[in-house]
């Protein structure tokens, strides 16, 4: 009978990824490329919001987009066609989120040497993307009116991690029981430093403010 040995670890499952993510952040700081990890549910309007945002900032900063999905390349094609900026599609092969290793592969593939800001459109999901650090410079989430004002209660982590919360589809607010004050209050309780900007990516309301936010962030980052 062979002897059974015990190897003690007490090691967080996330630790390897967290270390990789920190390395990536240091690398991006050196390269002066600002990477935005964009999270939301499926259908919150990430691609529409990005298109509208990029068209407002592309003359001031050099933009790249990495679209992560389980499959298909509809988002990357749509971004490229509607904004003209460099975009690539990453496939997660069934995984529900991106991790730091996948992000680094994507950044190598898109070639960041001529970019100031890269938007990483994470897989549509409010749970896993928040748990795996991508190594991005900033986490941003999009909540949309039809999803309801209770989402910050149900998925607290993603709201706690995000520096900016964009509340999209405000043009539809009259059709839904969405209490904006209550929603803002719940987000602030979980994350008092969060910036919250209500927008309609479709008709452009609030989008100039979002554009200004990112332009300033890139400037601060490069200094």
């Amino acid at each position, binding site marked *: 009978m062979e002897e*059974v040995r015990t190897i003690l*670890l007490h090691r967080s499952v996330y630790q390897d990824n967290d270390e990789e993510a920190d390395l990536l952040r240091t690398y991006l700081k050196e390269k002066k490329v600002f990477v935005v990890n964009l999270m939301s549910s499926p259908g919150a309007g990430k691609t529409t919001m990005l298109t509208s945002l990029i068209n407002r900032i592309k003359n001031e900063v050099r933009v790249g987009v990495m679209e992560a999905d389980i499959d298909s390349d509809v988002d990357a094609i749509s971004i490229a066609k509607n904004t003209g900026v460099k975009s690539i599609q990453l496939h997660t092969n069934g995984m529900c989120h991106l991790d730091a290793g996948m992000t680094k592969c994507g950044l190598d593939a898109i070639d960041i040497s001529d970019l100031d800001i890269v938007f990483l459109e994470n897989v549509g999901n409010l749970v896993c993307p928040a748990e795996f650090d991508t190594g991005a410079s900033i986490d941003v989430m999009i909540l949309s009116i039809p999803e309801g004002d209770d989402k910050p209660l149900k998925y607290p982590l993603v709201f706690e991690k995000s520096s900016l919360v964009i509340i999209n589809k405000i043009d539809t607010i009259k059709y839904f029981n969405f209490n904006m004050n209550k929603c803002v209050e719940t987000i602030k309780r979980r994350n008092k430093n969060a910036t919250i900007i209500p927008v309609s990516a479709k008709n452009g309301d609030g989008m100039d403010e979002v554009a200004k936010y990112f332009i300033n962030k890139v400037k601060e980052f490069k200094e």
Partner: protein
Amino acid sequence: MHELGIVVHVVKQVEKLAKENNVKEVVELTLEVGEVSGVVKEYFVDAFEWAKKRTEYMKNTKLNFIIIQGISYCEDCKDTFPTTQYGKTCPKCGGGNTYLVTGRDVSIKDIKVV
């Protein structure tokens, strides 16, 4: 699906460790899973059973789960309370000036190897 992502990370780390330590196989794996980590044990076990067939050292590994209680701290009362029962609201003062202390993490406690 969420559990699958975590399983993949666990398997990757254990396989690496097994290789580094020149073991023949991993007999047992014990995880500490936080009550508010969002991991559903049944889903995790299913994903683990799927993943372990594709490994080198973990084909017969038995999986043990230790649940770590979710505990939050109220900064106003300077006291702790169970998170799953009260959420973000302190049961003593009713305030929301609280934060999670334990219970979010998933960690590998130890492995038994031959």
